[in-house]
């Protein structure tokens, strides 16, 4: 709704600007007509008067139009900025998706083919070349490791699991992977979450989950993190809780605070709200609540 309001405000400002320009043209037209008649009547010596009048009108109109634009910009400043942030966030997400797909569907597959070719080369070696075979097999294993790293990077940028498995299973998988990789127990529960969640909502919640879990396992110094995904009426609620170091959410945001800002932006983009409850030494709870039916 906010963006619609912004468009309406911009539209009315544009209409006023057009009205000013039309008035200006009419004034110029009228005064020019007066000057032309004066010249026809042989009063050319007074023709400079309409020119002065026209100049005065034009200058007044330009000043008025300028003031209108400046005040209009100030009044509507919040709306274009919000639209800009929305666009920035969507563009950023689109870039991540494109790079992730490129990694997964192109580079990852080329590396897979390379692994196959190395295996084929190893199999084609004549007997008595054990040393060479061992070296080629070692290369194949390293290439396979590279393929796995590419796959992991691709999933971190844009989870194809979210596309294939849906929000609940992809979230469960993310928590399981974080547990395995970070040696922190990330417990996941879900309750009554619909199977089909709009893609933008699912992506926003998934991104908040990624960031919140990453923050908890990286900064909270805890052995256990709880994640819950549940239905709340027409909303989906994500809650990530740790009993770790905590922080002051009101402290000026440094580099680490960028994650919180990004989470807020992602949730705001789908008309949801994010609550961060944390204090130094008192753990952190991050709660994102997003309506499933996003207003158009």
């Amino acid at each position, binding site marked *: 709704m906010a963006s619609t309001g912004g468009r309406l405000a911009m539209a009315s400002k544009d209409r006023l600007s057009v009205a000013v320009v039309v008035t200006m043209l009419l004034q110029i037209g009228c005064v020019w007509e007066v000057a032309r008649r004066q010249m026809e009547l042989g009063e050319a010596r007074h023709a400079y008067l309409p020119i002065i009048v026209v100049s005065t009108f034009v200058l007044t109109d330009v000043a008025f139009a300028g003031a209108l634009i400046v005040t209009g910009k100030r009044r509507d400043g919040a709306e274009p900025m919000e639209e800009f942030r929305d666009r920035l966030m969507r563009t950023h997400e689109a870039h991540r998706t494109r790079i992730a797909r490129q990694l997964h569907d192109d580079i990852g597959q*080329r590396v*897979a*083919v390379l692994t196959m070719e190395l*295996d084929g080369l190893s199999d084609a070696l004549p007997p008595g070349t054990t040393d060479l075979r061992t070296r080629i097999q070692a290369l194949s294993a390293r290439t*396979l490791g590279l*393929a796995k790293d590419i*796959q992991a990077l691709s999933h971190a940028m844009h989870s194809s699991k979210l596309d*294939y498995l849906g929000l609940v*299973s992809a979230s469960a*998988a993310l928590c399981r992977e974080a547990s395995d990789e970070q040696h922190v127990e990330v417990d996941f529960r879900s309750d009554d979450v619909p199977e089909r969640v709009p893609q933008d909502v699912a992506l926003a919640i998934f991104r908040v989950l990624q960031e919140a879990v990453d923050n908890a396992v990286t900064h909270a110094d805890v052995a256990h993190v709880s994640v819950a995904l549940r239905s709340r009426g027409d909303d989906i609620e994500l809650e990530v809780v740790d009993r770790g170091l905590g922080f002051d959410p009101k402290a000026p945001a440094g580099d680490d605070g960028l994650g919180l800002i990004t989470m807020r932006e992602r949730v705001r983009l789908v008309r949801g709200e994010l609550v961060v409850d944390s204090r130094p030494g008192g753990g952190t709870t991050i709660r994102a609540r997003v309506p499933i039916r996003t207003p158009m």
Partner: protein
Amino acid sequence: MRKRTMPMTETDQPRVLIVDDNAAILKRAVSLLSRACAIVGAVSDPRAALEAVNTLRPDVVVLDISMPELNGFEVVGQLRRSGSTVPIVFLTVDDDEDLLRAAQAAGGIGYVVKSRIPSDLLTAVTEARAGRAYVSRMG
């Protein structure tokens, strides 16, 4: 759409349709399977695969999961809704247990990781034709 129809053999070789939008993988799979299978079609467009299953009547479909517009799971969904029971061997670069479970839930009988095509694909196709599951080793 890239579509290729091979001559039929009179042997008991399984009739296989291969679907993958990656040309290198498609070529590799055709080259490998044609030693022991009748490749009835090799297509890169998942929508063409739907038509090819109906017209070419393969014994087994080797199907990539990650494809633009229509992924492998969606292709199987459409095939099953249209009444086809053809066994599916999924192909993927993802060496991943979650995706394997999703592939099984979608109705796949085989799951082959692309880097293991030389060692696994023919076995997976043969097993699928016999109604048995085959999964590439993970990890």
